[in-house]
């Protein structure tokens, strides 16, 4: 057991957990933030994507101990407050970017990461680029079309926000 401290969604947290605890277990089972999902558990589906120090990572493929001292954002911490949604969340709602919704937290975390990265590099996030960037996020319902539309809309909402 090791005491692992980090900042999750703007709050300093600390839990005594076994060394083999995955970051996603730390988030879901110890912090009870169940917005981050476990889909495949083999690092392919991306339902578990969170931001670690501002970068999208698969929380099922990382030990909590490796995130000691890091700043972590989960889907619960994306919006500015509890009473509102992040522009990307609004875009997914507006564009029907989900059906069952299981993959959506990961999709949204990957989406905001790609928008921020492309904006920082001054590159245009085209439809083709979005599809390529979604390589590590699997959706079994939508056929991706509305997810891509949501991300395009979310990108412009984030730019104009």
């Amino acid at each position, binding site marked *: 057991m090791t005491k692992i401290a980090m900042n999750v969604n703007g709050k300093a947290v600390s839990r005594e957990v076994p*060394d*083999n605890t995955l970051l996603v277990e730390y988030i879901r089972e110890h912090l009870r933030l169940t917005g981050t999902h476990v889909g495949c558990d083999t*690092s392919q589906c*991306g339902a578990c994507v969170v931001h670690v120090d501002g*970068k999208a990572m*698969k929380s099922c493929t990382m*030990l909590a*101990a490796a995130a000691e001292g890091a700043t972590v954002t989960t889907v619960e911490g994306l919006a500015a407050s509890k009473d509102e949604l992040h522009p990307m969340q609004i875009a997914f709602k507006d564009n029907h970017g989900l059906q069952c919704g299981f993959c959506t937290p990961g999709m949204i975390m990957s989406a905001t990461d790609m928008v921020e990265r492309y904006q920082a590099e001054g590159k245009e996030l085209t439809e083709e680029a979005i599809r390529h960037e979604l390589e*590590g996020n699997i959706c079994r319902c939508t056929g991706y079309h509305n997810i891509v539309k949501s991300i395009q809309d979310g990108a412009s909402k984030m730019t104009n926000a």
Partner: protein
Amino acid sequence: MYTTKYHKASDAANAASLLSGAQDGKILAGGQTLVPTMKQRLAAPSDLVDISGIDALRGITVTARKKLGVLKAKDGATITIGAATTHAEVAGNADLAKACPVICGLAGEIGDPAVRHRGTIGGSVANNDPAADYPAALMALGATITTNQRSISADDFFTGLFATALNDGEIITEISFQAPAEGGYGKFPSPASRYAMVGVFAAKSIDGDVRVAVTGAGDDGVFRHAGLEAALASNWSADAVSGVDVSADGLMSDIHGNAAYRANLIGVMAKKAVSA
């Protein structure tokens, strides 16, 4: 996952000493292969020594041969990449994109964006997955793998499937190579995993030496292809590849494709590499 003891190393020497104190310790870099392997209980190290937070093992330096003007690939440059540098950092490095764009492109196609934010070049090289991209690049570029003990040429480093020349307790600290005058990577990714079913890295050095390395295809892991090297040394073009007979001997056959299929793909990917 079986229980394990986690250690955060402060530097390479500390990592080596933590490793030597462990019963069956393993280095943890990005963990994008090791963590899934441990979750499947295919690996059960008693201790994990995390080197991902060691700043001295991160970063990319590009030293151009010529000081004058803007850095261009053809001018030559010495490139050094710290072992704990992530794929995303390699893919997005502006100096590297000028001096050796092929390596940025290769890194940018590994896994997916989230994996690239965490996976490292040193981890990939140490793991030597027979379908990984970096081993082909390092072999074709004639790279040097530096460890906490010595320097090893890529030709001597990759010794077989998931096997390397690394001793117990030996830790990769950096990878270095000369930027090639010409270089290309042709990859046919598995439609499911995106690992290379065949990847061919072709490089022509500033001095005109041509080296061609193939990943994803060999029964014994990454290998150099003498026939393609000879053909491309005299004529760096897709046409030259057409005249090379690629044998299926020693190539992998699996659910994705048999040896003959892979032999054909080697030619196709070699053409793609030199046409890039």
